[in-house]
């Protein structure tokens, strides 16, 4: 069908819309002030013209009849779903008045600021939080803060920099750049990159490498597309990644398959690591992980002997394994001793181009922006920093498991309000009921979102309508390139997250008007300064720029030899010793500033709930529920209301092995109870031989926007969302990593006659 349009706007995806961590070049076709079509940008070296299902469904998302188009104020009791339209000024006044009242009575720290995943929200939100005066920037509901932070922190301790599987993403010419070499093997560990693009990594890059010749080793409890095409598949017990990594380390060291030259020259603590790994002989590891020892040995050998030049691409389950930081350390040690750090086709050091970041990412960047004294103040007051040294040393978030309890107990200091920005904690937090109660206990909740959802319905007092990426100005600096987000149109009165934040931050701190008289334009140009270009310059040159200055710190490879990684300009890594610290003094030091102590060497920790750690519970609930499998058409709790997308994945299902179906007399498509001591939910059975018989697999974030939104139903969130069953308070000893998202024990119970009917699932907008 030929689509009439007036103009095409080239831009970058990030945040609301596809919902993801973004980076794709997109083309927005505009006709009479309305986006009529969206395509991938074929000239963009990130995605080579491809657009995912969520990008291609943007017009249904932007112009959805139930989109929130103007600010709303709650009228009547929370949960009744009655909201009145107000103006932006009225909404801002209401927030300012309530927040100032709370500040007067309890201090600014009584307000918690809540974001979801790594999107273009943390920056704007922290601007409001810090200018209001609260230290409490959070990802509330994320048990163990277990999302990339543990992996990033572990890498920062061990090798002084983070790194990522090298799929040529650091070069504008990509696979054609002569400096680049394809990974011999890619170890895909705890991730399904065919179903999404996690942690700033475009998932299909793995396929791009496979097509050019990279071989796969896959570590995953579940069989899928990738395991079907892998040379080695290690189907491990959920949560035992740490033992597997230690077993592989031991095998590689014992057999002399490590890179002796690199270890000798650039690593510290190898002997201690070897000694620790000897505590994990393959027989022991096999019994912990379920993986036969021959398979572990074969995979370790294949990876090590094809190194340097093989990569590990890892996922969220590493963070969510017990003591996630330590598991990440073990896997980081694997690519270190095989000489794969910052070599072509290995785990390349991931510096942002020109060292630009969209917002302060850790305490060090925070100090650059606000000064050391301010950071010291924030760090002292941040929820959880008494208990966890990592909270003082690393990223800027509070400890979420501690925070939700503080909201309920009001100890050690009161929490009275929240600012929830494009997050949906009531449908996404571990132990949803606890978070629901904690948010209901607040005097005042501001929610910024695009649609009504369980959070807006149950706890919002004021709702501000947010813009999609297609309606906003912004920029993205996550690895490479530096790129800008250009607005194409306006929808209703919806506003850019950044603009909302700048408006409110300037209300709380009028001084900010002097620093950013033109609001976010000034802010962006200030952040972009190191590139030597302004927002307008970047827009004029097409919207993006790969940092490609030969010899600079953001261009691969072997930067540790070039003396560009360390502040003192000496060769080596940005660690206290300048070496890769296999035994990590920094990790131990970060941990030791709290009441906890952290082992400087990796070890294995049994899951919070398991056959071994809670045998009585296991007798009652003998199946391991693995949550967080991704759907290509949804991002976390989003997109259930988008007809084209929902049609592809209509049911909240539970994937089970045929033997489980046989034992419980379950048939494909029937509804079943999933239950444990925290509650029960309903799911539709999908029999899938790729699921391990001792586990069941469920997608998180489910709610049914086609059902009643008002309390108590809240779009059926209690009925179908797996986080009813997932605990909080299972964080690791650093406060970073852990929880039981992948290892919650449950049982399935067949519905008998008299059970309530299945939830009325339907594709939104149909009949």
């Amino acid at each position, binding site marked *: 069908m030929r689509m009439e349009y007036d103009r095409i706007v080239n831009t970058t995806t990030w945040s609301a819309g596809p919902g993801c961590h973004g980076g794709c070049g997109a083309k927005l076709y505009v006709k009479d002030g309305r986006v009529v079509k969206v395509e991938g940008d074929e000239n963009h070296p990130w995605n080579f013209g491809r657009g995912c299902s969520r990008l291609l469904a943007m017009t249904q998302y932007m112009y959805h009849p139930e989109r929130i188009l103007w600010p709303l104020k709650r009228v009547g009791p929370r949960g009744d779903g009655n909201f009145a339209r107000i103006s932006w000024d009225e909404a801002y006044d209401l927030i300012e008045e309530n927040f100032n009242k709370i500040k007067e009575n309890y201090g600014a720290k009584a307000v918690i600021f809540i974001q979801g995943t790594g999107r273009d929200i943390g920056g704007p939100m922290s601007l409001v939080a810090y200018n209001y005066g609260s230290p409490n920037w959070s990802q509330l509901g994320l048990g163990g803060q277990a999302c990339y932070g543990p992996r990033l922190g572990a890498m920062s301790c061990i090798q002084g920099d983070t790194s990522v599987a090298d799929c040529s993403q650091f070069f504008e010419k990509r696979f054609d750049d002569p400096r680049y070499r394809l990974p011999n093997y890619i170890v895909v560990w705890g991730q399904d990159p065919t179903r999404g693009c996690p942690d700033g990594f475009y998932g299909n890059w793995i396929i791009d490498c496979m097509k050019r010749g990279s071989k796969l080793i896959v570590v995953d409890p579940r*069989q899928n597309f990738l395991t079907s095409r892998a040379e080695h598949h290690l*189907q491990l017990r959920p949560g035992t990644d740490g033992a597997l990594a230690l077993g592989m380390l031991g095998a590689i060291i014992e057999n002399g398959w490590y890179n002796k030259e690199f270890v000798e020259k650039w690593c510290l603590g190898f002997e201690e690591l070897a000694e620790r790994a000897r505590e994990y002989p393959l027989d022991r590891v096999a019994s912990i992980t379920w993986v036969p020892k021959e398979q572990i040995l074969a995979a370790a050998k294949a990876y090590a002997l094809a190194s340097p030049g093989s990569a590990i691409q890892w996922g969220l389950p590493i963070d969510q394994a017990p003591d996630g930081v330590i598991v990440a350390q073990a896997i980081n040690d694997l690519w270190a001793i095989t000489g794969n750090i910052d070599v072509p086709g290995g785990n390349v050091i991931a510096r942002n181009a020109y060292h630009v970041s969209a917002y302060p990412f850790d305490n060090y960047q925070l100090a650059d922006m606000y000064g050391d004294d301010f950071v010291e103040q924030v760090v002292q007051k941040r929820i959880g920093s008494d208990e966890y040294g990592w909270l003082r040393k690393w990223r800027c978030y509070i400890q979420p498991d501690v925070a939700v309890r503080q909201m309920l107990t009001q100890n050690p200091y009161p929490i009275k309000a929240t600012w929830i920005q494009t997050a949906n904690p009531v449908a996404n937090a571990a132990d949803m009921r606890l978070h629901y109660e904690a948010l209901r206990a607040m005097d005042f909740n501001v929610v910024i979102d695009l649609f009504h959802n369980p959070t807006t319905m149950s706890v919002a007092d004021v709702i501000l309508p947010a813009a999609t990426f297609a309606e906003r100005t912004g920029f993205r600096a996550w690895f490479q390139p530096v790129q800008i987000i250009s607005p194409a149109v306006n929808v209703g009165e919806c506003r850019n997250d950044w603009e909302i934040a700048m408006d409110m931050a300037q209300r709380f701190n009028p001084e900010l008007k002097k620093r950013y008289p033109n609001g976010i334009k000034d802010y962006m140009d200030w952040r972009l300064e190191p590139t030597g270009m302004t927002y307008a310059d970047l827009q004029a040159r097409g919207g993006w720029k790969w940092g490609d200055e030969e010899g600079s710190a953001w261009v691969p490879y072997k930067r540790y030899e070039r003396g560009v990684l360390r502040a003192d300009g000496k060769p080596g890594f940005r660690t206290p010793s300048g070496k890769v610290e296999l035994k990590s003094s920094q990790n131990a030091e970060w941990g030791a500033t709290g009441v906890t102590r952290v082992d400087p060497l990796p070890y294995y920790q049994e899951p919070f709930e398991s056959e071994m750690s809670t045998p009585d519970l296991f007798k009652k609930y003998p199946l391991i529920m693995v949550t967080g499998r991704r759907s290509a058409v949804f991002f976390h709790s989003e997109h259930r209301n988008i007809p084209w997308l929902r049609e592809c994945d209509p049911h909240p299902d539970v994937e089970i092995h045929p033997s489980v179906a046989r034992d419980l007399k379950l048939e494909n498509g029937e509804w079943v109870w999933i239950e444990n001591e925290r509650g029960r939910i309903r799911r539709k059975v999908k029999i899938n*031989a790729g699921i391990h018989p001792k586990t069941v697999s469920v997608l998180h974030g489910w709610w049914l926007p086609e059902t009643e939104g008002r309390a108590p139903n809240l779009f059926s969130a209690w009925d179908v969302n797996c986080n009813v069953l997932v605990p909080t308070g299972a964080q690791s000893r650093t406060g970073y990593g852990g929880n039981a998202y992948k290892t919650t024990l449950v049982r399935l119970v067949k519905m008998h006659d008299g059970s309530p009917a299945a939830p009325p699932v339907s594709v939104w907008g149909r009949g």
Partner: protein
Amino acid sequence: MGKKGILVDMHYCTGCHACEIACKQENGFGVGNWGIRINEIITEKPNSDRVHFDYLPYFTLQCNLCAERIASGEDTKPSCVKHCGTACMQYGEIEDLAKEMAAKPRAILYSPL
């Protein structure tokens, strides 16, 4: 000009649904109407715990290979081919595609009347 078709390399289709939505957007299809539909095929191998996952796009009667999109000069390939997440689809003359097919271990070639 020879007859056109689409070659699908079955080894690389991951079932990401991009082709389905690209097609719906291009043609304005609502819920229930498809020009291309992905099928998931799970094969349990005898005497093995390894399970094989395949995904295969099926072209419906609605598919005309994006005739208008191509005739207008807006693009040189159908929307599903452009947005295929793994670039496992190729558009071209069936004689050329058949030659490509000979070099691929598992592929299918589709061409409407």
